[in-house]
């Protein structure tokens, strides 16, 4: 009796729904109809028989749409990120191309075939405040292999991977970092069914993506190397070049910075050789005199030695430091 009652109720509401919905234009959805949607089909007929006419409706057949597990991952870094001495942020997007809410496990692999170096992963975080930028201490940090929050059908989430160069990286080497997103419910061959695990109590079915996708972002090491060359010239009191007492030795230190990156906090230092005396105010940087005192200019010099702070020097730059000592 109960069974019959239920059938009639369903039939009535389904027929009404079928007729009402038919006149509403159907918007196509990128990810398809949402999991749990009921597809209800009812046909009706009109006819005449002799002088009489009538109409009849069929039963309604109902199919419930199950959850399709699909995902798309894209690397958002279109031009390679330049990585120097500080960490860089690689950006990826994960889009739930399925039709139900789903969280995704995020795995980051810095070891991609063809890499010049494998980046060191510092942090993986997703854009939990949705502003599109990495906010340290604000965006939710996940472990490598950890899950994002649940993404609604069609929704996208930005994921940030913060990496640094490994110790062995050299200037100009490039590297790819791969991010893989797997549906938390499961992955597998398209068509694989996870019974009862779909949204809305139905099944979950692996879609064409295998419920897993990955993409890479590229980075390029931009480093600087510093070479320092020291030379000396001697001027004796007689106009010659003999290193005799009273002769003045001019030391020249040439710092050459090469590479596409920059050298930070670069200092050129030297000690005053034993048996010689620093000649006051003889310190020069690229031909310009520097005071001996520790003041606004870059140089400090005295009896113990010299120190020229070159600060940040870009690759391709040469800096020349000179100072004089007199042989005692």
């Amino acid at each position, binding site marked *: 009796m109960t069974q019959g009652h239920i059938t009639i109720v369903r039939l009535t509401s389904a027929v009404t729904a079928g007729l009402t919905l038919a006149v509403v234009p159907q918007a196509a959805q990128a990810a398809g109809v949402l999991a749990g949607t009921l597809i209800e089909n009812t*046909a009706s007929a009109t*006819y*005449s028989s002799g002088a009489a006419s009538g109409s*009849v409706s*069929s039963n*309604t057949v109902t199919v419930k*749409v*199950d959850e399709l597990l699909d995902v798309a991952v894209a690397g958002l870094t279109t031009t390679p990120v330049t990585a120097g001495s500080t960490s860089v942020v690689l950006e990826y997007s994960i889009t739930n191309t399925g039709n139900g809410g789903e969280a995704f496990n995020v795995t980051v692999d810095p070891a991609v075939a063809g890499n010049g170096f494998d980046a060191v992963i510092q942090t993986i975080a997703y854009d939990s405040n949705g502003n599109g930028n990495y906010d340290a201490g604000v965006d939710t940090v996940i472990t490598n292999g950890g899950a994002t929050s649940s993404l609604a059908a069609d929704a996208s989430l930005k994921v940030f991977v913060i990496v640094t160069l490994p110790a062995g990286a050299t200037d100009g080497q490039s590297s790819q970092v791969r991010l893989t997103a797997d549906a938390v419910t499961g992955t597998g061959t398209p068509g694989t069914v996870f019974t009862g695990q779909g949204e809305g109590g139905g*099944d979950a*079915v692996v879609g064409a993506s295998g419920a897993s996708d990955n993409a890479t972002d590229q980075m390029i090491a931009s480093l600087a190397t510093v070479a320092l060359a020291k030379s000396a010239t001697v001027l004796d009191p007689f106009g010659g070049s003999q290193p005799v007492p009273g002769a003045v030795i001019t030391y020249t230190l040439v710092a050459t910075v090469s590479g596409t990156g920059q050298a930070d906090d670069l200092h050129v230092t030297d000690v005053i050789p034993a048996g010689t005396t620093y000649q006051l105010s003889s310190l020069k940087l690229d031909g310009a005199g520097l005071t001996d005192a520790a003041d606004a200019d870059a140089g400090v010099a005295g009896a113990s030695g010299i120190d020229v702070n070159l600060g940040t020097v870009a690759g391709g730059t040469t800096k020349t430091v000179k100072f004089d000592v007199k042989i005692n």
Partner: protein
Amino acid sequence: MKANWIASIIGMTAFAACTLATPALANPQPVELIGDVKVEKVVVENGKETRSWIKPQVVVPGDRLTFSTQYRNTGANKIDNFVVTNPIPTGVMLAPDGAATLDVSVDGGKTWGKLGALQVADGKGGQRAALHADVTHVRWTLPVLNPGTTGALTYNAIVR
């Protein structure tokens, strides 16, 4: 073996609705309509594709469904102008194959024709040729249905 099919059906009790449409049981409908649905199952075995149509257990976007309506003249008299109308359910669209030959409507059943002759608003103030996904209703017209005549009307749909 790789099964590419998919699927869940609920409440698919085949139950003729004529008792609802007709208040008095003493005057039963001379025609019955029985609806059914099948999902296409593609099995790839040794690189060979086999298609079959089964009762759906799981359906997901992209699946192909066949909706069928069986009709039968259960009365003693000839029936004329038998017109069966089937709104396309929300969540599916008419499949492109075979759509051209059906009598369809793209405006909720107000006007009818072959798909190639119909137009819809293009959303930019103009009109464009209607596509299979625009179809809102399908219709079949049978001029005469003699007593005992039975048959099935089908259309294919794709889960959006």
